[in-house]
């Protein structure tokens, strides 16, 4: 059975859900194989509970985040989560993800793309793997572009078991001058080049659905 239970549903096709949230606190109880798209939703707290043998892909894209966001995930046995966050903000924000892995044979892949236009955005990812568990995988791929603002990324993975495969990749940078020059040499104005680079970056971990819905 493939299903997702949330407070406010939504739209559904082949286990793919576009969530239109009416409250700031949302709970996902996931069973089976599910994909969720969250586009420009005003979510403060998102709790995700993955039942055993379930898989959840979350595509979360907000190009003007108006609040802090906390996402709490619980995984028990044989589950997989791919959480793809894309966030742009002009204001001071905290985007926090806590994933607690309590059982065996789970996979957690958390990817974030952050653009800060003015103030500091903190992106804190905490993955915790319980002791005496086996065959868990915890991966983090966290990237930011400071487009006039500041970014702080904290990739924390706490493993109390010896049998965990864990890896994280974190980069924060400004625009690549070489990339802008390259696009300008093809006939793009500097502003257009920057726009394309930012757009490409923010959607680089998102699904085609989000890219098509997202616009500029």
């Amino acid at each position, binding site marked *: 059975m493939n299903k997702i239970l949330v407070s406010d549903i939504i739209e559904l096709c082949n286990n793919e859900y576009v969530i239109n949230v009416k409250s700031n606190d949302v709970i996902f109880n996931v069973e089976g194989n599910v994909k969720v798209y969250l586009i420009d939703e005003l979510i403060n707290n998102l709790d995700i509970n993955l039942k055993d043998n379930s898989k959840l892909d979350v595509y979360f894209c907000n190009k003007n985040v108006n609040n802090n966001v906390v996402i709490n995930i619980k995984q028990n046995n044989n589950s997989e989560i791919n959480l793809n966050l894309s966030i742009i903000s002009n204001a001071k924000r905290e985007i926090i993800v806590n994933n607690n892995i309590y059982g065996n044979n789970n996979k957690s892949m958390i990817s974030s793309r952050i653009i800060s236009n003015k103030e500091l955005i903190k992106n804190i990812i905490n993955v915790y793997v319980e002791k005496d568990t086996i065959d868990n995988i915890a991966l983090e791929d966290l990237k930011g572009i400071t487009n006039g603002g500041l970014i702080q990324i904290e990739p924390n993975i706490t493993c109390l078991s010896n049998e965990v495969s864990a890896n994280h990749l974190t980069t924060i940078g400004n625009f690549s001058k*070489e*990339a802008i*020059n*390259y*696009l*300008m*040499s*093809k*006939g*793009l*104005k*500097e502003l*257009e080049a920057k726009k*394309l*680079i930012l*757009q*490409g*970056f*923010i*959607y*680089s971990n998102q699904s085609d659905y989000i890219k098509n819905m997202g616009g500029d």
Partner: protein
Amino acid sequence: MLNIDNINLYINDKVLFEGLNLKINAGEIHVLMGKNGVGKSSIAKAILGDETYKVDGHIYYNDIDITNLNIYERSKLGIYIVNQSPMEIEGVTNAEMLRTTLSDKTNEPINILKFNKELESICASLELDKRFIHQDINVGCSGGEKKKIELMHMWMLKPSFIILDEIDSGLDVDAIKIVANSLKKYYEEYKPSILIITHSNTLIDTFDDYYVHLLDNKKILLEGNKELAKEILSKGYKNLIKDEHLL
């Protein structure tokens, strides 16, 4: 067409060239040769408008002083470069970049059907899988694929002055044949001026005639035609410079 008029070229206050003159007329092919590190690519980047390089003097393109124009403005005039290691741009597809550029150039919306058809036909002629059209620019591509993608851009953008910075380096025999044929076809169709930077004759021999400039010691040491290229390639840079008592 291009006139580099007695310039001094610097990078970070280091002098790369002094009193450099280079005139390339419409439809002419010129070849820059010289040992590694002599500054061949620096000339290419200075023509392109890379701000890393400081130019004292003037560079003219079609009688317009382009010395203070930026890369975009020079590109709009028809100047185009294929670098030896083309950039990878994550998240920006070839189609997206070309659509944006072409609509800026023509000030008209792009006819997507025609645009895709043209790109597919260019890919076929370059023996390049058409899936690259909608892939991120050069990301995860081999050296040969990157050079072909740069030529795909060239065919779409139709520049009038093309700089080929060691486009022949790192290509296998089949790829170099495809690249050379594509360039020759473009040359025959649009008659652009071409500035080639190379260490071998594999690409330049595709063209019937060309001018050669040997660079060393911050200047052009020797100029000639395809015979000079042959001499350079048979003797080597060091021996030729010694034999000719050039330094």
